[in-house]
């Protein structure tokens, strides 16, 4: 059984990879804030391009950061797929729930604009 345990859990990455991930996360956070600042200053370069796409840019960057931490720092890339399932399945339910609630309340607002 010990051998079976060993096949499910593999060696974790080296510190150099952890550092690369940390730097990528830092740059992505800086990009998020940069996009926010550009979108709120009307004279800023690329303002007209970034402003209407701000939420989409933030969602993409946030999802990428989330995936990086989960895969490399939480070791889902190396560990058993059972752990990935335990994490990803509730995440899917969570995403569906948030989307459903937003759609429901948007629909209600459409029906009763003054409420």
């Amino acid at each position: 059984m010990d051998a079976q345990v060993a096949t499910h859990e593999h060696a974790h990455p080296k510190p150099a990879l952890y550092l690369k991930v940390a730097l990528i996360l830092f740059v992505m956070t800086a990009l998020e804030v940069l996009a926010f600042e550009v979108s709120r200053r009307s004279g800023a370069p690329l303002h007209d391009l970034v402003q209407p796409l701000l939420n989409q840019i933030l969602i993409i960057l946030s999802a990428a950061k989330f995936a990086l931490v989960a895969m490399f720092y939480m070791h889902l890339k190396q560990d058993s797929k059972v752990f990935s399932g335990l994490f990803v399945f509730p995440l899917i339910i969570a995403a569906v729930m948030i989307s459903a609630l937003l759609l429901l309340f948007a629909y209600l607002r459409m029906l009763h604009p003054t409420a």
Partner: protein
Amino acid sequence: MAHDTAHAMHPPTATGLDTRKLAIWTFIGSECLFFATLISNYLVYKGKSLVGPLPHETSQCLLHGQMTTCEPIFEIPLVTFGTAVLLFSSFFVVLALNGAQRGNRKQLIGWLSATVVCGLFFIGMQVYEFRHFYHKGLGYTTNLFGSSFYTLTGFHGTHVTIGVIWLATVLVLAIRGKIPAEKSLNLEIAALYWHFVDVVWIVIFPVVYLMR
């Protein structure tokens, strides 16, 4: 080699997986749904406040019994710095775990101490932010923004506090020499919880502070 020893010490289970690790992942899965409800709550009420203070807009608000003009309440540079500190704390804790798995006590204690300090800084930042908002007129029941904001970020801050206490406990054990390589899973489980707190903030930061 120490790492292999650590895994070889796992008790035999029906799944071939360590039950403690299975438990923390199940718990983290349930926490995803918990935070999803709080994030939904924030998003559903976003932009529905009748009075200020508001996150990004100048508004009319009731301060000391008088209606007055309130400035936007968020301070993005401070929160950005707090976010960076929390992200780097995740990096520090994986280095501590790496040290624990290799039996390098100095590396374990050093990086784990740095993680705890980062966690304490983040809590301090949040306490400062809450006090600052309160003095600017944003109480828990002032408007829908205040209620949903304090509930979401307050629960996250509570999780960070629990994480800091947990990691500080592991740090004390490590200083006493009670986290040898074969017991590195004790830190790995605490680290998983800490990373989860980090990924939740990765979602909260843009949703609450940056999105329009």
